[in-house]
């Protein structure tokens, strides 16, 4: 065991507290701003205490929105939630199915399918913005939930993760289920999926955050306010002249956008770390 002198231990704690301060202070600023009036924020320097308008501001954000964007934030929360859940569940379902096919069946196009999925790693939205937009618009999927979700649910990493996991399933289990006379889909539904709980949970955490935090894609395909996600809403609230930005509402909305994925990470920390260090490699 390494021993530390008192002073060195103190210095270590001190450094870590600086690290925490770097992370927490910026968030405290926005929390503080969300508790003041517009006038108070504009009167530089802004007060740094917690003001008395916390509830009023959040209420206004949730049910009214800002003057320049009259969409209530609860609608955007609903949209972000639908998008995040759609992406994470969609990814898990279609990746489980594809990995099941690739690992447990031998069919002529197996390799081709595997490599097709693999190649998608190299084609993120950022590099094919305009043509993908055109496909979505040709299919009439602009301003729809399916347009927000569908192009995002292909995942090479998810297929790899499940493939890796399926390869460790003992052959005896497959054989036993076949001897018992269960069909391939019964084996999948009753044995394989329940066995995969751990990777499914890990993937869910990562993908929920990924879906919730999508920005470029909803920015491209949503023009109607009733389909804005939280992040798009925040950006729209900030467009226009500085004096017209209702900072207290923007900051309240920013905090509301931050809380759900943070709760998911904190509550599922174990699955999150596993998901991150295993799926991303």
């Amino acid at each position, binding site marked *: 065991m390494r021993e530390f002198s008192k002073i060195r231990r103190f210095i270590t704690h001190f*450094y870590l507290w600086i690290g925490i301060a770097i992370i927490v202070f910026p968030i405290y600023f926005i929390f503080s701003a969300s508790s003041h009036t517009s006038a108070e924020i504009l009167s530089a320097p802004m007060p740094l205490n917690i003001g008395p308008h916390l509830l009023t501001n959040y209420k206004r954000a949730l049910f009214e929105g800002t003057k320049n964007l009259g969409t209530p934030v609860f609608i955007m929360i609903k949209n972000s939630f639908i998008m995040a859940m759609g992406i994470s569940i969609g990814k898990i379902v279609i990746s489980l199915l594809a990995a099941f096919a690739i690992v447990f069946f031998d069919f002529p196009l197996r390799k081709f399918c595997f490599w097709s999925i693999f190649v998608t790693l190299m084609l993120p939205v950022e590099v094919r913005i305009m043509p993908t937009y055109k496909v979505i618009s040709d299919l009439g999927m602009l301003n729809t939930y399916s347009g927000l979700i569908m192009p995002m649910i292909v995942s090479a990493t998810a297929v790899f993760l499940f493939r890796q996991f399926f390869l460790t399933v003992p052959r005896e289990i497959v054989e036993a289920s076949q001897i018992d006379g269960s069909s391939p889909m019964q084996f999948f539904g009753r044995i394989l999926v329940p066995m995969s709980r751990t990777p499914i949970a890990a993937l869910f955490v990562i993908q929920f955050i990924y879906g919730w935090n999508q920005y470029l894609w909803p920015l491209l395909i949503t023009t109607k306010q009733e389909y804005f996600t939280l992040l798009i809403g925040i950006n729209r609230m900030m467009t226009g002249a500085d004096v017209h930005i209702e900072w207290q509402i923007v900051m309240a909305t920013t905090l509301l956008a931050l809380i759900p994925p943070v709760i998911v990470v904190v509550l599922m920390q174990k699955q999150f770390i596993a998901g991150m260090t295993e799926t991303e490699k």
Partner: protein
Amino acid sequence: MAKQYEIKAKWLPYFLVLPQMIIVFIFFFWPSAQAILQSFYLQDPFGGKTIFVGLSNYIALFTNPDSDYLYSFTISIVFALSITFLSMTVSLFLAVQAHKKIKFTTFYKTMLTWPYAVATLVAGVIWLFMFNPNVGVIAWILKHRFGIPWDYLLNFQHAFILLTLAASWKQLAYNFVFFMAGLQSVPETLVEAAIIDGASSIRRFWQIIFGLLAPTTFYLLVMNLVFGFFETFPIVHGITAGGPGKSTSILVYKVWRDGVVNLDLGGSSAQSVILMILVIGLTVLQFRFIERRITY
């Protein structure tokens, strides 16, 4: 590769991969092919004529003085390198501290891990708010206490610093998690042996721990460059919108702006194709590294 396929069925596997394959073709392969094709055409944005122009969209990117493509390329590289360096150094330092045998490590780890969940745009908005010349607390302090006339909307250096800080802040937690995992896999016995040999703590760190962390560091290096290059769009779009002027218009921002705002489909497609080549290069690099790790 271990073999698993045991189940006999003729059509079932095709049904199973079908959903994934349909989406791959409609939303990945088809648009990518379109991007490649369009990059050779000059197109009227209102759906009129298209003329085959060969490589001239590409040539224009590099030779047309209005295109600023080379500048955008340079600034993207500098930006990605700055984020990578700043964020990885701070994260490694914090991870080494949190790995020491002290109290409250679980608390410290949680506190330094959760910001992974913060969206890139949210990170941008938070930093914009602190540094906004009209309302920002830090901007006020810089101006009134240090006499720096801070305005990232007018000053390129200020804009670049702000973007780098916001993006590096966003990456801290990601790097921290991986460095933490890397440090935990360093065998305790090796470090103890070094202590017995009388190696100082600084030497122990650089000669043993840092060496064993090399795979993690390399992986993070690639991932941070990818982040800086391709995933910082929300920060740039949210904070500077490429400004002042076009000075912070990084490649992903430019490809979006030229396509969506300026409706220059040919030019935007040519940029897409160049970005694709870059992503392919970085992915190959990453997989080479993973392969090597497996043979170790």
